[in-house]
């Protein structure tokens, strides 16, 4: 399975991608919502996108809205990974079409739990 990691912080992209790779994903990265859309439009196929909220050029909420508006991308699971943690923000993200929401700081276990809920963890767990 393949995941798209979208965050304007290179550190955070590496942390999220690292955790996903430990869980058996291959990953590709983008620094903002526009870069991520460009990747998808160029034919990159992913099962999961982990999306930061606050990014320059195009933020995560806008990216989610764009993806959900495109039937070609309806099978991509969208998970916010963000410091935005107000109740209202989570409601907004889910209303925009995000499937899941992970608040920073998070542990690898927390990512695994969320992916489990989404049915995205490979059957065999890494040792």
């Amino acid at each position, binding site marked *: 399975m393949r995941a798209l990691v979208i965050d304007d912080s290179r550190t955070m992209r590496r942390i999220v991608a690292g955790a996903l790779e430990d869980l058996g994903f291959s990953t590709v990265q983008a620094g903002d919502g526009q870069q991520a859309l460009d990747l998808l439009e160029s034919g990159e196929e992913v099962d999961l996108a982990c999306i930061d909220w606050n990014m320059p050029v195009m933020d995560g909420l806008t990216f989610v809205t764009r993806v959900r508006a495109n039937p070609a991308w309806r099978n991509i699971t969208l998970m916010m990974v963000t410091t935005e943690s107000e109740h209202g923000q989570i409601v907004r*993200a889910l209303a925009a079409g995000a499937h899941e929401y992970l608040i920073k700081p998070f*542990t690898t*276990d*927390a990512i695994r*739990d969320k992916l*489990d809920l989404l049915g995205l963890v490979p059957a065999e767990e890494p040792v």
Partner: protein
Amino acid sequence: MSLTQDTFAFVADVVRRRSAIQLEAGKEYLVESRLLPLAREGGHAGVDAYVREVRSARRESDLADIVEALTTNETSWFRDNAPFSALRTHIVPGLRAERTVLDGLKVWSAACSTGQEPYSIAMTLTDVLGPGARFSITATDLSEQVLAQARSGRYSQLEVNRGLPAPMMVRWFQRAGHDWQIADELRRSITFAKHNLLDLPPAGPFDVVFLRNVLIYFDLETKRSILGRVHRALRPGGYLVLGAAETTIGVDGDWERVPVERGSVYRPVHAGAVPSPRPAPGTLTGATPAVPTAAPRVPVSGAPTSTWPVQPRPATTLPTAPRRPAGPAFEQGVTR
């Protein structure tokens, strides 16, 4: 400020006996930071002084506090997912098939820890049973400390990040400062109480018992006696839900295993009665029930050697964020 080896060795021994968790060399730092709040609460200068007092006073509750501070149950919401899915797809439909008006459903969460399990059950049942349906959950655990948090319904951000579906989170939780507070509606449906599994069960009879990931810490004889008490606390036609890797097979013959999705649930079999399969709508059943066989009694050797009464605590992973101390964490001032 560091622990003596003696203190560390004592703590490691207590934790190992009661939780199967090994605290090896290098974890002194962790032990100290976890026990410091307990030491402060007791008015001690530091962890060494606190542990000295614990050893001389020989109070069971102190040991339980220490083990609790250093271990944690796997405290994720909807743990393993399958049992909660089973509630939806198999258990509630099965109960409905017996009595069309499913009111006053009674559930026992028998090792409820900090409450994630009973609250997850409550969230699921509210969804499945629909508005207006009443159910009650009895949630028990041996430790007052975990029960206190469970009753409060207040969780840290790291705790709510663990396996709680985001839609459930926004529906059932509000922010309380840096923490998250579960809705009163759910809290009202749950009664939390201290209970030792070695004692008689709380007042039933129950439609469903969750007894997850706690039996594994008891010897075979004790497992059997616990299962016997659970059996008597369940309504005929009720359901027992165990942990993902657990089974009654080979332990106690008075149960019928029913495969559900990727796992199983168990139903009490009563002597002389062959349980008739009750097909739940749209789910897999109709399998020939297992004929109960009497398991041979296995003599238990090697009674626990600890001088204090030992209640094995289920614990698996490394600790999560420590409970915050009651008062200000430290005295550094606020400047204006």
